[in-house]
């Protein structure tokens, strides 16, 4: 955890900057520790200890701006570093829009860093033996049950980790915020081999901010089931299909929307949602909110990197764009009110009812392709055109009938989200983006 001495040093850095000639300065001090225990085939394979400290320094000098960082946090080193940084900023062009936020937008409720209840005080009590046990207990390699169709487990790579993250944010206008969280994580990747000698790999992961909510017992078997489900996978005939996207990967189709609403993209014209504010561009079934204050979950935040208070807000309401993400800099450039730099925890709301999941969405669609993993691909942010590799299952009458791989979905995000049919409530709380399983019609698949 950040110590009182480190807090004092961060505050001194504001003085170093002012004394070197900066009119304003923002200091972000971060400190983290993480222990990782990796296993390979049920044996400890790697033990890693990470401990990081760094200071990010934003300087506002004579109408100019520069951003700097350093991880040598000794007083004399910092003083010299900041002095040199101020001189560097003076060589840049002036920019009238580079200012600190108005203090009335500052977060004033993040005093201890623990307001969102995402810090587990028992973190410091975990010992090396417990970590090893958690990593080994999560592995099933040595007790793997018989797999369907005669497949065998070739390889299981798991990693248990726990971490503590602490950030302290201050500026020369009086901003003073702190956020701390702990995280307990397990991820596993398995490779199986079918009787025909073909290999299939898959993964699963879980995460919790509290030890007593952490449970990795099902991860490996989930990954193995997913891999076994791919045995014999082949591409289907190219054509238009209904598509259901499983919640573990559904954020892949939401992130481009959120990115396109970011002020930097909009101001540069590098967004397919330029001029979209107040327009109903998507299916009226689509509702996305930002839900940043969810207690006890990693990723929730009371403030953004400028110290601006986050808030619960609508992003897309009944298919209409109702929010851009605009920080102080872009606010000046775009002549748009400051709204906060990004979505902290976007959540897509269920439709048509609050009891839907992946299976009920497949039932809703009848026939189609379930996508439960993506393989590469990209989105042209300027046009919204996309193309992604996928794998999953062909489903008929709402039931999976055949594994599918080596296929691509291709289209445009405006069209895709016009063809949005519904969403479940099965988002994963451990993910930053709270996106449930999704259903769409008329999606172009190539195989």
């Amino acid at each position, binding site marked *: 955890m950040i110590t009182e001495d480190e807090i004092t040093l961060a505050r001194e850095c504001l003085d170093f900057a002012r004394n070197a000639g900066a009119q304003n300065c923002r200091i972000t001090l971060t400190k983290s520790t993480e222990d990782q225990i990796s296993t390979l085939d049920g044996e*400890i394979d790697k033990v890693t200890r990470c401990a990081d400290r760094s200071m990010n320094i934003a300087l506002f000098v004579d109408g100019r701006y520069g951003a700097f960082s350093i991880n040598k946090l000794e007083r004399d080193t910092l003083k010299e570093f900041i002095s040199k940084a101020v001189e560097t900023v003076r060589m840049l062009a002036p920019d009238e829009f580079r200012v600190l936020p108005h203090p009335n937008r500052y977060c004033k409720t993040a005093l201890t860093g623990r307001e969102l209840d995402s810090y587990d005080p028992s973190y410091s009590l975990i010992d090396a033996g417990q970590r090893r046990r958690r990593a080994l207990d999560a592995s099933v390699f040595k007790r793997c049950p018989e797999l369907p169709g005669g497949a065998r487990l070739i390889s299981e790579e798991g990693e248990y980790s726990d971490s503590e993250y602490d950030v302290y944010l201050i500026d020369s206008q009086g901003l003073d915020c702190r956020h701390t969280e702990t995280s307990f994580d397990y991820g596993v990747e398995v490779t199986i081999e079918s009787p025909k000698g073909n290999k299939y790999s898959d993964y699963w992961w879980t995460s919790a901010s509290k030890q007593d909510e952490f449970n990795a017992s099902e991860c490996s078997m989930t990954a193995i089931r997913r891999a076994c489900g791919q045995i014999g996978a082949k591409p289907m005939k190219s054509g238009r299909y209904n598509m259901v996207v499983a919640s573990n990967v559904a954020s892949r189709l939401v992130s481009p929307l959120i990115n396109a609403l970011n002020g930097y993209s909009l101001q540069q014209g590098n967004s397919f949602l330029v001029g979209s504010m107040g327009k109903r561009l998507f299916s009226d079934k689509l509702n996305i909110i930002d839900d940043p204050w969810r207690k006890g979950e990693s990723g929730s935040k009371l403030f953004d990197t400028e110290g601006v208070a986050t808030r619960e807000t609508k992003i897309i309401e009944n298919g209409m764009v109702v929010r851009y993400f605009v920080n102080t800099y872009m606010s000046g450039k775009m002549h748009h009110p400051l709204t906060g730099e990004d979505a902290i925890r976007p959540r897509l709301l269920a439709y048509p009812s609050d009891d839907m999941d992946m299976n009920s969405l497949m039932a809703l669609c009848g026939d189609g392709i379930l996508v439960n993993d993506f393989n590469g691909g990209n989105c042209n942010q300027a046009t919204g055109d996309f193309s992604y590799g996928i794998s999953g299952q062909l489903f008929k009458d709402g039931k999976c009938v055949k594994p599918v791989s080596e296929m*691509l979905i291709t289209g445009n995000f405006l069209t895709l989200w016009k063809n949005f049919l519904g969403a479940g409530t099965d988002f994963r709380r451990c993910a930053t983006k709270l996106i449930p399983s999704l259903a769409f019609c008329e999606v172009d698949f190539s195989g």
Partner: protein
Amino acid sequence: MMNNSELFGVSAGQMRTIVAEGLKGGDWCDLYFEQTVYNDLLLRDGAVASGGFHLDYGCGVRVLNGEKTGYAYSESTEFQSLMDAAKAAAAVAGKPGSFKAGPSIPTAKPPYLMQTDWSDADKKQLSAWLEKLEAAIRSRSPYPSKVIALLSWSVSNIMMYNSLGELTSDTRPLGSVTVTAIFIKDGRTEQRNISRSYRCGLEMITDALLDELAAEAVKDLDDSFAARRPKGGRMPVVMAAGASGILLHEAMGHAFEADFNRKGQSVFCDRMGQRICKSGISIIDDATIPGNRGSILYDDEGVPGQKTYMVHDGILTSFLHDRISAAYYGVLPTGNGRRESFRYNPIPRMRTTYMESGADGTLEDLVASVRKGIYVDKFANGEVKIGEGDFTFYVNRGYLIENGRLTQPVKDVNIIGNGPRALADIVAVAGDLKIDDGTWTCGKEQSVAVSCGIPSVLINNLTVGGE
């Protein structure tokens, strides 16, 4: 000039003591000291109004016990901090290990071209260069709306010491320019991303580079505005020389990394010595190309950078090894043990991956041989599923091939295939090898600078995304 021992404030005797502490938990210990200073200047809206520098400093301590790894790092290089890191890394201790390092390999000439140190950079002059670059783009096209250009440069001072008593040092420069240009014509928007990256000094900033970037930013722009999605499906694909090397990186290179093979995960793990593609095809991973982004004097385990034939005349001849996998297979390390920074342990990674020129004519010959297919020459990103060998890469620009001629421009499609099948389906290789100088970065667990290249090739049967 300060030597690395002075820079990191650690003596040879102290390094021996730290390594001895690490060896209490294993049979190999190495230290990786790093100081990287990264600088950037950003042009946006016609002015260079943002920039900065960043200092990253620390040391990683690795202990190997057989194939098991203990790793810890410290952002302080004070003796006690490093001893603590060594103790933490030694926690891997278990049964007696069996790690045996291969013999040392003589070093080679540094593959860097630094004539003028980046520390001599005049930031005002560099800002003026970026502004001139924007002007050059605007002078070549009536359609530019916005130009963002980022110039970044870093110098990493690396010092490595291991339990064989080997002490190696490397000073790695890396300069990069990336340009994102937005063009608008008749209400349609076209985005171009262009980059160059070299392991060289300030001398890379020239008018010639500026002209090259500006010309590429507007190349065939009208075609891009007219580009459409092709009809998707399986078809022959002609991949142009240069950036198409992403095919080798994704479809083959990762599957040749020895960690995936040692663990039985790779689709190629039992194919060493076998024919995996037609004769005449050789695929190389090379750390020795002067000034190339993927080049390194030493890898991050102190093994000299080398040129490694993975496929020679169609036969799989070598995986890409770090010290762990080399010991496992009983071969010499190939200098592929790389890491993002001192915060990470090294793992097998590519450097510059390319295919040697073939003897099947020219690009035009390859296109002329296709009745209906697609030609691609500009790419974004790629990915691979190691077990299955299924790979994808994203195409920013290409053309349909109809009756042996390039016709309709296409863009924004993903291509998917299977590594072993795609290798076997390479039916023609032209004689025009080109190494791409873009800012390629590989993201296997850690981000590492790489590069790729290829001559023009014809692959019989890949799946192209479309409508």
